[in-house]
């Protein structure tokens, strides 16, 4: 590298990773958020492994997810069906988000609007599904301090962790709605790029990524 080049690099304005400032900061925020979620999920693991394993004869043992999560709107005794629907909703809304980002690269405002609308819809369906599931479980008697299915800490951890994830989804829906309005008003067209959609895309995929592990910890293990 020549001296002039080096000087230019050190004079600012260049990203060492050829990624824009906003996107790098979103990545680093997501890393810190990963550690928050990891802290919660690792606490879940530690508390769970300090409780007796699932055992029909012990009412205080760790509950079986197939017993706890076996209902959906209008149906019962169907283990994991409703959560599968929720997982697919989140995966699909991640896909529509990627499509919005791609259309943004080609400055296709109509395309961005269409795919963002579908992403927002997917997020809303997910949050409402979770609201239904919470309501159902609370009616069954599961609260942060009680759990008819077994160890009470299961209820506390479930509401804490899915609540924190649901909060992230809700924030994502609000931010995506805001970006939808900005796109509709042509703000990003005037700016000359759709980087805001990319940054929100990173956040939205992160929410999907966290769900993979929440799903693993609560519904599969």
């Amino acid at each position: 590298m020549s001296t002039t080049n080096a000087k230019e690099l050190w004079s600012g304005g260049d990203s060492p990773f050829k990624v824009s400032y906003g996107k790098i900061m979103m990545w680093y925020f997501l890393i810190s958020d990963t550690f928050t979620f990891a802290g919660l999920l690792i606490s879940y693991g530690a508390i769970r492994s300090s409780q007796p394993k699932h055992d029909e004869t012990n009412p205080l043992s760790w509950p079986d997810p197939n017993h706890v999560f076996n209902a959906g709107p209008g149906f019962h005794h169907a283990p994991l069906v409703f959560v599968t629907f929720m997982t697919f909703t989140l995966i699909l809304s991640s896909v529509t988000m990627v499509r919005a980002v791609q259309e943004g690269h080609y400055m296709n405002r109509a395309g961005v609007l269409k795919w963002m609308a579908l992403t927002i819809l997917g997020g809303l369906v997910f949050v409402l599904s979770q609201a239904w599931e919470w309501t159902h479980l609370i009616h069954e008697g599961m609260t942060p301090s009680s759990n008819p299915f077994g160890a009470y800490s299961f209820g506390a951890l479930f509401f804490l962790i899915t609540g924190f994830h649901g909060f992230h989804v809700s924030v994502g829906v609000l931010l995506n709605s805001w970006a939808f309005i900005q796109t509709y008003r042509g703000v990003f067209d005037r700016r000359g790029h759709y980087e805001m959609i990319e940054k929100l895309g990173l956040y939205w995929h992160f929410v999907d990524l966290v769900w993979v592990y929440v799903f693993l910890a609560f519904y599969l293990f």
Partner: protein
Amino acid sequence: MSTLSREESKKRVWRVCGILALVTIVEIAAALIHYNYMEDSPKTFLNILFIILSAGKAYYIMSEFMHLKYELKPMVISVLAPFLFLIWGVIAFLWEGKYWLSMKQFWDVLN
């Protein structure tokens, strides 16, 4: 943006969507088969399978959806390196949890 053409990147997105959906179906199917037909057998092998499949899903989401695969290598390292701490975290705290359980059993203060 990567060097992929518009059509190629579109196709790739739907392919990754298919992979994620398929892996989720396999996970659910494995969980339900275990629940319905072999509930008395230990879940250890199944849990290892779930961990591997979830790591696979995480790989596809990060590399394709979050576009990490197409970034420069130092960027990828700076994002992924901190996660090494989590491997330690998971092992250390599960170990600790098991110890709490054995202490509770020893002093007979379970529940």
